[in-house]
């Protein structure tokens, strides 16, 4: 505890009095620790720790969810996906409310097992998330999946969205706390672009409060002394080059694609789709899925929150019409969503 007090004291000494500093985290688990530890209340008034796009469920396009609902309504299809995805609201309802044949899984292994146990059905794995979930999906493809298992990929690339945010002057990011386990896959070197091209310190941190405070402290030290570079206070897990084997397997099966982010819009090269070589496993192609126009959720500012332009408390639905039991927008559904975390903290 004394150590934490010392770090907080140092953080106060490093923040300049004459300007506002905005540090963004891009990981739901980081936001969870920050919110539940009460860390923000211990920071200087002019230091903001803002939650960014750390919730893959929140940015999953409405179109993909509606397609998943429709697939689950086919008699010969079993739709499988991670639990959070079942409750995400769309203009056509949620998978839970409107779907027919669907199952929750906690690992791509379970998708394989369900397909094997149901050889007379087509199992569609609605696979979403950033690099930490992309790699396991690529891994089952490498291991060899059953012929009746198909992938509906809604994977997103963390470094790409972070670069979009850096270019947005309205957000005004001074530093990034890079996600610990995404970094384990992509490597801390993946963040070098932010220091080298944009002069923004980026520090990889773990998930305990003390480690996160170290990360914040290092960002502030870099801003003060001008020696901006990629930092890493989670070295026990994250290597500069990352998990090279995972990167190779991901690259074998997936390629970058121009995709939508819910509430944000179209971002070139920010998603991952199966390569054409694996079209026979690609649910988009096998089932000829079409893009469905996204509907705006009245009053919901989830997209603005994901971009770091507003806090959940700025939403007029927050804690009123929108709660974890009655989520109006995706940021309230997932335990990695900023609204869900702020509601419970």
């Amino acid at each position, binding site marked *: 505890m004394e150590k934490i007090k010392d770090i907080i004291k140092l953080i106060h000494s490093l923040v300049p009095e004459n300007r506002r500093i905005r540090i963004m985290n891009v990981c739901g688990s980081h936001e969870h620790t920050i919110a539940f530890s009460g860390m923000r209340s211990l920071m200087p008034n002019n230091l903001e720790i803002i939650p960014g796009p750390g919730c893959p469920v929140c940015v999953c396009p409405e179109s993909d969810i509606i397609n998943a609902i429709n697939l689950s309504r086919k008699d010969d299809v079993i739709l499988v996906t991670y639990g959070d995805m079942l409750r995400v609201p769309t203009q056509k309802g949620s998978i839970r409310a409107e779907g027919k044949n669907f199952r929750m899984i906690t690992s791509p292994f379970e998708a394989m097992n369900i397909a094997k146990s149901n050889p007379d059905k087509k199992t569609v794995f609605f696979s979403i998330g950033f690099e930490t979930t992309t790699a396991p999906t690529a*891994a089952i493809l490498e291991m060899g999946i059953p012929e009746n298992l198909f992938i509906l990929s809604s994977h997103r690339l963390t470094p790409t969205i972070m670069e979009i945010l850096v270019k947005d002057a309205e957000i005004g990011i001074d530093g990034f706390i890079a996600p610990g386990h995404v970094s384990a896959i992509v490597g801390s070197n993946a963040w070098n672009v932010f220091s080298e091209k944009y002069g923004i310190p980026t520090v990889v941190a773990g998930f305990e409060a003390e480690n996160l405070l170290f990360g914040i402290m290092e960002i502030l030290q870099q801003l003060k002394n001008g020696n901006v570079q990629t930092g890493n206070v989670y070295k*026990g897990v994250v290597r500069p080059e990352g998990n090279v*084997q995972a990167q190779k397997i991901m690259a074998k099966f997936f390629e970058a694609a121009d995709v939508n982010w819910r509430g944000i819009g179209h971002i070139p090269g920010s998603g991952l789709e199966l390569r054409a070589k694996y079209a026979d496993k690609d649910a988009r192609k096998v089932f000829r899925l079409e893009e469905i126009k996204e509907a705006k959720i009245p009053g919901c500012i989830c997209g603005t929150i994901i971009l770091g332009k507003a806090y959940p408390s700025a939403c007029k639905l927050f804690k009123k019409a929108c709660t974890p039991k009655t989520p109006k927008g995706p940021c309230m559904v997932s335990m990695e969503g900023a609204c869900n975390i702020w509601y419970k903290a």
Partner: protein
Amino acid sequence: MCVGVPMQLVEINYPTGIAEAKGVTREIGLQLLPQDAVKIGDHIIVHVGFAIEKIDKKLADEIWETLDEILRVMDEEEKSARSLNSPRDD
């Protein structure tokens, strides 16, 4: 879904294995780590059933301290989600 769980390898049948954490064992994928890089007794970070990196025991214990709180919340969410496969309530 992006929460990484430290576990300890108790059996290896590459590209899969059995790992244990807090008395619970489960089959995990080892495909994301080189075969010659893993051995029984190793501590690993597991994401959605796949080991993504090796770690030391001290770090595994530290991560568990934080995870205990996160998983308490996650358990509540999963219990809610698990009921989704049974008759709907909304």
